C-alpha cells in the first residue's frame, strides 16, 4: 500500500503556479501576504500545504482555483492549470473550470452546505449545471460515490438535509460533491480540523482512497503535520507567505532541514514533569454521584471525580460525552438533578446564584473560544481589572499595578497591550487575556474547557507551557477538558475518560495510558495521528484485522 505514495509514476504537470504574489487590503493599503511562491502539482499527486494560521496556505489553495478572497488580489506570477493561465483567464472561463475541473472542500462542511436543500440536490447541481450528465445519472453517480466514501446507508443518505447527518458524514458528503464532475484537482482546506479524532480517521481514509481511485491531484491544507503526513506525497511548509521547506513526505518527517519545520515536528513533545502522588488530605474539589440533564434529556450518569490541590485532572472524551456539562455542573450553571459537588470538604450550592462571592472567586473558568469569551467592547485593562475590583476591591493605582503584574505573568508587554481591544489581539493573545482574567481572581482551581482546541499547534503549546508554569508558581489545580490526547499526555496528572455521560476509566496518567485499557480509551489513544507516514495504513490494517 505504501508504494502508492512513493514509487508510483505520476502523470504530467496539471498545475504550475510560478512566482505567485497575493496582496491583502487593510487600512486602505495593500500588503503583500504571499511573497512569490512556486507550486507544481502532477496528475494524481497529493501536495500538503502546512503552516500556522496567517501563513497564507488557504490563500494559496484558493489561488489554485484562480480565486482571491474579498479584499485580496493576485498581484503577480502565473497560475497555469492544464495549459490555461488562470490569472489572465476571463471570469466566464474560470466559472467553467471551477466545480467541474477544479473543486474545493471547505473546512466546515456544516457552513458550506446550504441547509435548505437535500445533500443529493446539492451534489447534482454542479454536473447538471456544467452539462456533464443528466440529473438521473448524477443521482446514481452520487450513490456510487457515497458507497465508495463508506457513508452509512448510501442509498438514502443523499435524501437527508445537512443538519440530519453528523459532522464527519457531512465532510465526506462534501468530498463526494467535489468529486461529482471527476475534477483534475481538488483543494482540501482543513477538512478534518473541526472533527473528533475518532471521526477524523474515517474521513481521512475515505478521502485518501477516493483521491487514489480517480487519480486526482489534490492540495491538502492543514496545520497538523501528523495528518498531512498520512495524506500527502509531498509537503510544503509555509510561513508568513514564504516557502520554508519543500520535500517528499517521508524525507521531510525523518530529516527536516529547517529550524521551523523541526519546531512544527516537535510540537507534541512537550511533557510535564511527573509530580508526586496526591497527598491524602481532603480533595480540593470532589464530585459525588452527579446526574444531570438538559430539560428531560439526561446527560450525566452517576459521575464522580476528585481534584486535588496543585494537580491537573484531564477529562477526555468525544463531543457529546458530557465533559463540558460536567464543567457546567461544577460552576453551578446547571444544577445537578442528583449528587453533590464538594469544595474543600464543604458542599457547594447547586446553582451559582446561591454561591458566595468567595466560592465563585476560588473557582475560575477559561473557555474554548477566546473570541467569544471576552467582551469585544472592553479594553484589556477593564477585562482584567474587573475581577480585581469585584472580588478584591482594588481601585485606581493599586488595580493598575496588579494588571501590569498579571500581564507580565502571561508574557504580554503591559505597555503595548493594556489599552487594546480584543479585536486587536491574535487568538493566542486573547486566550492569554482569558487566563489573566481567571488569575486576577486569585483562584485555587481553574476549569480549562478545550482551551487550546481553537488555536494553532505552536500557539497551543505555548499556552500549555504557560499554564504549566503558572501551576508550578501559584500552586493552582486544573480541570482540563479536552478531546485531544496529545494535550492530555502533555499536561495531565490524572485522567478521567468519559463516554456518553459516564466515566469509563479514571486514574493517574501513567496508569490510564498503560495497557490494558478500557476498550474506548484504546480507541481514543490509537486514533491520535502520529508523525509516521505509515501510521494510518497500519492502523486501518490492524482494525480490519481485529474485526475480521
Amino acid at each position, binding site marked *: 500500500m505504501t508504494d502508492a505514495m512513493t514509487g508510483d509514476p505520476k502523470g504530467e504537470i496539471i498545475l504550475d503556479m510560478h512566482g505567485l504574489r497575493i496582496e491583502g487590503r487593510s487600512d*486602505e493599503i495593500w500588503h503583500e501576504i504571499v511573497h512569490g511562491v512556486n507550486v507544481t502539482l502532477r496528475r494524481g499527486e497529493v501536495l500538503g500545504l502546512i503552516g500556522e494560521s496567517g501563513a497564507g496556505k488557504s490563500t494559496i489553495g484558493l489561488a489554485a482555483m484562480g480565486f482571491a478572497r474579498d479584499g485580496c488580489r493576485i498581484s503577480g506570477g502565473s497560475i497555469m492549470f492544464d495549459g490555461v493561465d488562470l490569472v489572465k483567464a476571463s471570469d466566464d472561463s474560470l466559472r467553467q473550470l471551477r466545480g467541474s475541473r477544479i473543486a474545493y472542500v471547505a473546512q466546515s462542511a456544516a457552513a458550506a452546505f446550504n441547509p435548505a436543500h437535500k445533500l443529493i440536490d446539492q451534489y447534482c447541481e454542479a454536473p447538471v449545471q456544467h452539462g456533464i450528465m443528466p440529473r438521473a445519472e448524477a443521482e446514481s453517480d452520487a450513490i456510487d460515490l457515497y458507497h465508495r466514501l463508506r457513508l452509512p446507508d448510501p442509498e438514502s443518505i443523499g435524501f437527508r438535509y445537512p443538519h440530519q447527518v453528523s459532522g464527519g458524514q457531512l465532510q465526506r458528503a462534501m468530498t463526494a460533491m467535489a468529486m461529482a464532475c471527476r475534477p483534475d484537482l481538488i483543494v482540501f482546506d482543513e477538512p478534518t480540523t473541526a472533527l473528533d479524532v475518532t471521526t477524523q480517521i474515517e474521513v481521512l481514509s475515505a478521502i485518501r482512497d477516493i483521491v487514489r481511485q480517480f487519480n486526482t491531484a489534490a492540495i491538502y491544507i492543514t496545520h497538523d503535520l501528523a495528518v498531512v503526513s498520512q495524506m500527502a506525497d509531498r509537503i510544503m511548509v509555509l510561513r508568513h507567505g514564504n516557502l520554508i521547506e519543500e520535500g517528499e513526505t517521508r524525507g521531510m518527517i525523518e530529516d527536516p532541514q529547517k529550524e521551523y519545520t523541526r519546531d512544527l515536528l516537535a510540537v507534541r513533545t512537550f511533557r510535564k514533569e511527573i509530580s508526586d502522588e496526591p497527598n491524602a488530605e481532603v480533595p480540593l474539589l470532589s464530585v459525588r454521584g452527579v446526574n444531570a440533564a438538559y430539560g428531560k434529556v439526561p446527560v450525566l450518569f452517576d459521575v464522580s471525580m476528585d481534584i486535588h490541590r496543585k494537580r491537573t485532572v484531564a477529562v477526555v472524551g468525544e463531543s457529546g460525552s458530557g465533559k463540558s456539562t460536567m464543567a457546567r455542573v461544577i*460552576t*453551578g*450553571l446547571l444544577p445537578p438533578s442528583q449528587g453533590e459537588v464538594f469544595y474543600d470538604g464543604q458542599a457547594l450550592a447547586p446553582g*451559582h446564584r446561591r*454561591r458566595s*462571592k468567595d466560592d*465563585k472567586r476560588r473557582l475560575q*473558568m477559561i*473557555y474554548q*473560544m477566546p473570541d*467569544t*469569551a*471576552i*467582551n*469585544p*467592547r*472592553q479594553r484589556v485593562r477593564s477585562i482584567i481589572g*474587573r*475581577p480585581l475590583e*469585584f*472580588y478584591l476591591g482594588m*481601585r*485606581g*493605582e493599586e488595580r493598575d499595578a496588579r494588571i501590569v503584574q498579571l500581564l507580565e505573568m502571561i508574557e504580554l508587554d503591559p505597555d503595548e497591550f493594556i489599552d487594546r*481591544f480584543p*479585536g486587536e489581539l491574535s487568538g493566542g493573545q486573547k486566550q492569554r487575556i482569558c487566563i489573566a*482574567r481567571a488569575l486576577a*481572581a486569585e483562584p485555587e482551581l481553574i476549569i480549562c474547557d478545550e482551551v487550546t482546541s481553537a488555536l494553532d499547534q505552536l500557539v497551543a503549546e505555548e499556552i500549555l507551557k504557560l499554564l504549566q508554569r503558572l501551576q508550578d508558581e501559584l500552586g493552582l489545580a486544573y480541570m482540563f477538558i479536552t478531546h485531544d490526547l496529545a494535550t492530555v499526555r502533555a499536561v495531565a496528572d490524572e485522567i478521567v475518560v468519559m463516554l456518553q455521560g459516564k466515566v469509563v476509566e479514571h486514574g493517574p496518567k501513567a496508569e490510564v495510558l498503560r495497557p490494558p485499557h478500557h476498550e474506548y480509551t484504546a480507541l481514543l489513544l490509537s486514533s491520535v495521528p502520529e508523525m509516521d507516514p505509515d501510521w494510518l495504513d497500519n492502523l486501518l490494517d490492524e482494525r480490519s484485522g481485529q474485526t475480521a
Partner: protein
Amino acid sequence: MTMSAPSNAFGGQASPWVSRIAMAAVHFFILVLFLQNVAADTWSSVIGLLFAHLYSVVALTYWSKIERTAAGDTVIVTVTLEYVLMAIIFWERASAWPWSTMFGLGMVQVCAFAAVKYWKDLRRAPASAWFGLIVILVYVMVAATAPIIAPFGETEIVGSEYDVWSNKHLLGTDNLGRDMFTRLIYGGRNTVGIAFTTTLLAFIIGGFAGILAAAMRGWVDQVLGRLVDILMAIPSFIFALLILTIVGTSIPSLIMVIAVLDATRVFRLARAVSMNVVVLDYVEAASLRGEGLWWLIRSEILPNILPPLVAEFGLRFCFVFLFLSGLSFLGLGIQPPTADWGSMVRDNATLITYGDITPLLPAAAIAILTIGVNFVVDWFLHKASGLKD
C-alpha cells in the same frame, strides 16, 4: 504633541461621580454669573463668555478624555472665538436671548471637541457622511440660536397673507401673514427637538425593556413581550389619535404617546439582538463572576448591541418625524400658533395650486434632515462592523 493630558486631567483618584457633580455645580454657578452680567453691560458679558469658554475647555477635556494637541486646542479656541465674535457683532440680538446664546456656545464647543477627538475617524469618513454631519450641524445650530437668527417673532403677524418672496420676507408670508423664513427656523427647533426627545425616550424605554427581557428570560420576558404584542396589535396612527383625543394634545403627552408606541419596535429589536449576545461566553463568564443584572446590561450587553440600535435610532428618528408631521397635518400634533413643519405644509397647501413651491419647503427641510441622519448612521454602522473584525 505639546501637552498630552492623561485620561484624568485633574489627577487623583476621587470617585468620578463626586467630581462630576462638583463640576456640574461650578458650571451652573458660572451660567448664573453670566446671565446676571448680560443685564449689566456689554464688556462684562463678553468677559463672562470668555471665562465660561475657558472653563468649558477644562471641563470638556476632563469629561471627554480628549488627548490634547496644539492643533486641537487651536481649532477649539478659534471656533469658540469666532462664535463669540459673532455674538458681539449681533450683540443686541445675542443679549436679548442669553439662553440661546449660551446654548449655541455650548453646542459649538461640544462639536469642536467631538471633531478634535474623532478627527482620525472623520478624516476617513466618506463624502456622504460629511454631508450628513454638516446637515445635522446646521440644523442643530439653527435650532439652538433660532430667536437670534430669525428676523421676526415666531407668531408675529408682519405682513399681508401669502406675500411673495421679497427682501423683507425672504420666503414670503403664510396664510396669516407670518414670516415664512422665521416660521421655518422656529419650526425646525420645535419639530426636531420634539422628534429627538421622543426617539430618545422610545429608545430608553424600549431598549432597556428589551435587554431586560433577554437577560432575565422567563416570566419577565413573557409579560413584557405580550404587553408589546398588545400595543402593536393596534394600528399605531389610530391608537395615537385615540389617546391624544382623550388626554388632549399637549407637547408632553404627544412625546409620551409616540415614545411608548415607538418603544414597542425598539423593544423587539433590542430583545432580538440581545438574545444573540446573552448566550456568548463572556456574558456567562460575567454572571459566573457574580455580576448583578445592571452590570450585565450596561457593560456586557449594551455596548455589543449598540451598532444595530444606533442604526435603528436613525431610522426611528425619521419615522417619528414623519409621524409627528402626519399628526400635525391632521391637526392633532403640535398646536398652533407654535411653528411646526408638518402643520406649515397643511396651512399653506393652497399655494401649491398656484404653482408656488413655498409650502413644500418645510417638507424639503424634513427630507434633507432625514437623508443626512441616515448617511451618518450608515457611516457609523460601517465603522462599527469594521471594528468587530
